[in-house]
């Protein structure tokens, strides 16, 4: 039982890391990044390949973070010219390009065969039974650090500028600030976090293959973000927990719907997830726990 809970928690925390990166990019900077999974993939493969070559895991994770962040640099340049939905499709294309490359360049990535036998975090350091727990604790610490970092960033003058960019880029330029610079940095930080998440996941799963990095993962992160309420870190946490809750909790539907076949049950699961999405968006406009709009109502006299 605890093992399963820990596994789910690990899954939550990995999604959470990714979501926090996206929260910085979209929630606070307004960059519509639909290629988040691309950075995640870059992180995974970088760390996995390095570790398989014998590089110590902390080093490989650092490299994963750095490389994912670097990969975001050119996209930041592109985001200079492209707004909103146009950037969305370009980033989506980027993540697909990453996946195709991983899939095709067999000499490096073994292509579709994937990378088995990636060194596990903490392997050889602690009792195998405790590894998952340790990974969970590590992720918890990483998440906390990342949240603190983001919290600090968005409260700073830097955060104020990226928030302003989200609202009105033209006006930001009129204030003598170069939006491209801020956007690129925000994109790189978010991407780096996703890369780190990817690396950690690779060392947790020990097997990765290109099929894991499909755009659906990006959609999931977006869903988490919107469920919890865009623009608040607390919302990100709740959204992610809810998402994984929907995805995983629906496994236990079997105990409720005893009559239906397995195929139908799978349909019911997806149906419930779909309905939950619609209902949350419809009936909880600010996300379940987002920034309320009440702020404006007070104090006009």
């Amino acid at each position, binding site marked *: 039982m605890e093992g399963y809970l820990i596994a789910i928690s690990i899954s939550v925390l990995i999604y959470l890391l990714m979501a926090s990166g996206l929260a910085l990019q979209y929630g606070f900077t307004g960059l519509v990044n639909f290629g988040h999974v691309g950075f995640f993939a870059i992180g995974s493969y970088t760390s996995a390949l390095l570790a398989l070559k014998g590089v110590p895991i902390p080093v490989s994770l650092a490299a994963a973070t750095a490389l994912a962040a670097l990969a975001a640099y050119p996209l930041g340049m592109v985001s200079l010219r492209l707004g909103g939905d146009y950037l969305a499709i370009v980033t989506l294309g980027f993540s697909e390009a990453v996946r195709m490359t991983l899939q095709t360049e067999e000499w490096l990535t073994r292509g579709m065969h994937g990378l088995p036998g990636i060194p596990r975090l903490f392997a050889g350091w602690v009792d195998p039974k405790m590894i998952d727990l340790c990974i969970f604790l590590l992720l918890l610490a990483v998440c906390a650090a990342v949240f603190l970092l983001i919290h600090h960033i968005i409260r700073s003058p830097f955060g104020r500028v990226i928030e302003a960019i989200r609202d009105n880029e033209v006006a930001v330029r009129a204030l003598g600030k170069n939006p491209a610079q801020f956007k690129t940095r925000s994109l790189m930080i978010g991407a780096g976090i996703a890369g780190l998440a990817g690396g950690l996941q690779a060392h947790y799963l020990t097997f990765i293959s290109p099929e894991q990095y499909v755009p659906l993962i990006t959609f999931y992160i977006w869903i988490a973000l919107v469920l919890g309420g865009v623009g608040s870190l607390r919302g990100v946490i709740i959204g992610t927990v809810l998402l994984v809750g929907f995805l995983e909790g629906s496994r236990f539907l079997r105990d409720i719907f005893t009559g239906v076949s397995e195929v139908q049950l799978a349909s019911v699961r997806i149906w419930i997830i779909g309905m939950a999405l619609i209902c949350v968006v419809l009936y909880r406009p600010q996300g379940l726990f987002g920034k309320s*709009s*009440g702020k*404006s*109502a*007070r*104090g*006009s*006299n």
Partner: protein
Amino acid sequence: MSLLKIANLSGGYGDVDIISGIDMDVGAKEIVTIAGTNGAGKSTLIKAAMGILPRISGTMVFDGIDLMKLQIEDRVRIGISYVPQVRNVFGTLTVLENLQVVEHAPAKAARIRDMFDLFPALAGRRGTYAENLSGGERQQLAFARALMSSPRLILLDEPSAALSPALTDQVFEEVKRLPQADVAVLMVEQRARQALAFSDRGYILDAGRIVLSDTGANLLANEEMGDVYIGRGQVQAAPQSPSSHI
């Protein structure tokens, strides 16, 4: 008998009342001006009359019809039209389309021709997307758009803002002529002195309440009000003979 009768109207965007306890009349063929400081609630009041304000209470009757029950579109149908202060044109439509798109316009083509006669600057730019218009051109278009549907009451939110003196005069002349065509006018103006001069009546709004209402002439004569709300006389009179006041 008054065309639009507002009684004890309160409302706002959130929980807080932006306007409260408003009583106001606009008679048929009357020009009524609302003035007041920035943020007093003038636009909010106009929006309430158009049905755009999210939350209102009180009564509003237009020509015997209870307005509180009507949708925005229906208010247009019974003869109310509106020029907002901001976002007053469809930016992604061309000048011509901005006029064509108005519903309830009898003899549309002829009416559009009239509008282009009235504002020749627009005629030359008929194919331009409205978002590319200059500030003044927009204002003209917005006014023309509101006239399209041959309304009986026209709500104008600062029609002269961004207009050159020549055009301001032209627009005001047009407003002055409206009662002859059986159109009543309720307008918000910052150039209140100019506006009150030809208004039948005026209201001064402050912090969401009506602090003074009287005929246009009487308001202009009220010194204290001038200092606090509508500025001293010479400022507004200036455009006609600018050099004398430097």
